[in-house]
């Protein structure tokens, strides 16, 4: 991505005698190519996230109650704050593109830096959310737990008895939990001097109750989707940072501002992904609670 932006820069070489890269006939062709390239790349990104959205939909359809509970365990206010932060950063990015097209490089600089600040703000809020989940041990994996107060809310709403993790506690230290070959063990272990394939033992008893596993799936997908989105935000920060640097070197003019525009497209894409993630993950069935 950022290298694509760089590709366009080699157009604006330091020799200064040509306004476009050697493979293009003219700046218009270069600009058109960059735009099509960025849109094609965004199509790729849609499918990249698409696989995760498919997984989300499949399991939401299959485990509606646990999906509902998982959604309620997320802090919709922080999510809402982040939505506003990102939408506002989209505005500053759009203004940056406009400033570049008008050749107002100072305003461009301010807008880009504001966008970076907002992107960092988003990450800070996200970090607090992740940290909270970490403290409550709502992290998929061996130590996944559901805080008791969440279980109370769940039981009030659905009137079902949520099976406490008694089996997990009871079996702590037993072979089932610590069997390194078991599906819940820490990972594959090679058996010394045993040339044949070792078949993994099926656990004697499930470590978690069913609902635990389903809820864990929700959080696995929550972290996968928001994590992938977060990586895109970080990449975006680097891209916009590069723009700030190049702008200060005086690269962008009224005539040549394609990299700003391309980064703008990318940034709006990152926002749109969040606009889908927020209601899907945070806002399930809020009206009834």
């Amino acid at each position: 991505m950022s290298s694509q932006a760089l590709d366009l820069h080699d157009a604006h070489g330091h020799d200064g005698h040509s306004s476009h890269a050697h493979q293009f006939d003219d700046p218009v062709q270069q600009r058109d190519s960059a735009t099509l390239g960025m849109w094609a790349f965004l199509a790729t990104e849609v499918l990249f996230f698409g696989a995760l959205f498919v997984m989300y939909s499949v399991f939401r359809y299959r485990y509606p109650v646990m999906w509902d509970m998982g959604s309620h365990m997320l802090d919709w206010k922080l999510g809402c704050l982040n939505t506003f932060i990102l939408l506002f950063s989209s505005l500053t990015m759009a203004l940056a593109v406009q400033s570049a097209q008008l050749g107002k490089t100072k305003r461009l600089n301010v807008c880009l830096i504001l966008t970076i600040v907002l992107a960092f703000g988003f990450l800070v809020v996200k970090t607090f959310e992740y940290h909270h989940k970490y403290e409550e041990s709502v992290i998929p994996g061996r130590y996944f737990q559901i805080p008791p107060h969440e279980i109370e809310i769940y039981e009030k709403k659905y009137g079902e008895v949520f099976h406490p993790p008694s089996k997990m506690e009871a079996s702590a230290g037993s072979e089932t939990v610590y069997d390194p070959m078991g599906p819940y063990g820490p990972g594959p272990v090679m058996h010394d001097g045993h040339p044949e394939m070792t078949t993994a033992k099926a656990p004697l008893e499930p470590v978690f109750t069913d609902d635990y596993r389903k809820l864990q799936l929700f959080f696995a997908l929550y972290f996968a989707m928001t994590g992938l989105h977060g990586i895109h935000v970080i990449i975006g920060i680097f891209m916009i940072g590069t723009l700030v640097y190049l702008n200060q070197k005086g690269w962008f003019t009224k005539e040549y501002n394609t990299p700003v525009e391309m980064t703008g497209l990318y940034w709006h894409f990152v926002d749109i992904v969040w606009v889908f993630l927020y209601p899907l993950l945070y806002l399930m069935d809020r009206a009834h609670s």
Partner: protein
Amino acid sequence: MSSEALTYPIEPAKAASPGDNYLTNGFSLKSWLLTHDHKRIAILYLISISVFFVIGGLAASLVRLELITPEGDLLAHETYNKMFTVHGVVMVFFFLVPSIPAVLGNFLVPLMIGARDLAFPRINLLSWYVFIVGGLFTLVVALTGGIDTGWTFYTPYSSMFSNTYVAMAAVGVFITGFSSILTGLNFIVTIHKMRAPGLTWFRLPLFVWGQYATSLIMILGTPVLASTVALVAVERVFRIGVFDPALGGDPILFQHLFWFYSHPAVYIMILPAMGVISELISAFSRRPVFGYHFIALSSIAIAALSFLVWGHHLFVSGQSPYAGLVFSVLSFLVAVPSAIKTFNWTATLYKSSISWDTPMIYAMGFMGLFLIGGLTGLYLAAIAIDIHVTDTYFVVAHFHYIMVGGAVMGYLGGMHYWWPKISGRMYPEGWAKISAVLIFAGFNLTFFPQFIVGYWGMPRRYHTYAPEFQVLNVMSTAGASILGVAYAFPVFYFLWSLKYGEKAPANPWGATGLEWQVPSPPPTVNFEEVPVVTEEPYQYPLLEPERV
């Protein structure tokens, strides 16, 4: 493209002397490793995928040697599993997918459309480095202990149970996927935006149409595979269980997502080969391609349909039978554009003046083998037959007829056809003909028996089998030996020709197409003047061969 394009002279970086070409433009290692020239990047790809082909081939030969006898006497179970997995992973992701697009496509697409380079030369170089990094991950896996899941990484075996380096292999495949995406992106933009004046869509060489359709699949399919294998790796490390039924996940979901890319990936392999064959058939029968529009659009049709047929890999996996029904019908539909191509090639040959140069032998070989591979594909699209032959050697034979009989024959045919352009030298025709015939014979001897033994019920992926299958397996291994030797020939005579081959003229085959109008090998800038295209493609007979 604007009309001023005509008047733009090209400023070469330095004054080009008549003898200057892309090969003589710098000899240092740096001039190769940091090149932005699509032709040099094609050579980088050529060298790297050849290395991977050898690795994949060695793994295959061990598999075939093991299968001479019904007992498991050469390799242990574990080693055998690792060998067929390395063979599959390397051949699919590191040879077949990049073969024609990244080597021939990289070299030829800009030349064929009259452009000076691809739209994004740096991204092109980046894609090679990404490919190499992904390849190194896979090599490390292969050298340090291998992976035994099969190239399909089926869960939950891969994510929970396998005791091999699945996570690292998955990372390798994930990274390499981006190389494929970047190449596809580059081709799409280049073909859309950088065609020479007068080169309308329906004047494009069919090779370019094939590349375009392939690129569509690359940018739309690969990202799905990327996030899927990434989740397999995450699941393996953190045990989250999206694909593990014991943790509430769904292994069928993995298969859906995996084949959403991996079935279209088969068309990534075959579509560029079909593009090559269209060029070869036309050039060596000296006739315009019959039904040009149909062949061009059938490539797009195959690309579109490719995304709707993945479910035929799940007929026995617990997918709903109604979904199976729909996927079966859609899979049959792929036969239509494929048949359109085959019939049109045949019609091109009808009453034409055919010359039997090596590329044409490969083209004819392709048509025969693709026919068998394609028709047995119909068997497998039919649910009832598929249930009988699922996971048998019938399936193995079918996809090798498409991937090796189709894609590799196309690749080798293309390599011979354009070798004079790439290297500036002619290859030795006699040796080339011998090896082409040997490859065709060896291939059939290797894989035709597998149809029979598979239909009889020999399952794939076991290193022992019932004794009554032995005769056919010995035939298959014998064929594989011939194939292995025959594949080695081109490596040697291509290298030999670099020094001792006759100097190639600009257009040794008397073929149409812009790539034959520049010197062999082409100058770094490709075209001194932007060419203007005024004619329909394949206007044979147009030029007399310049052959000496």
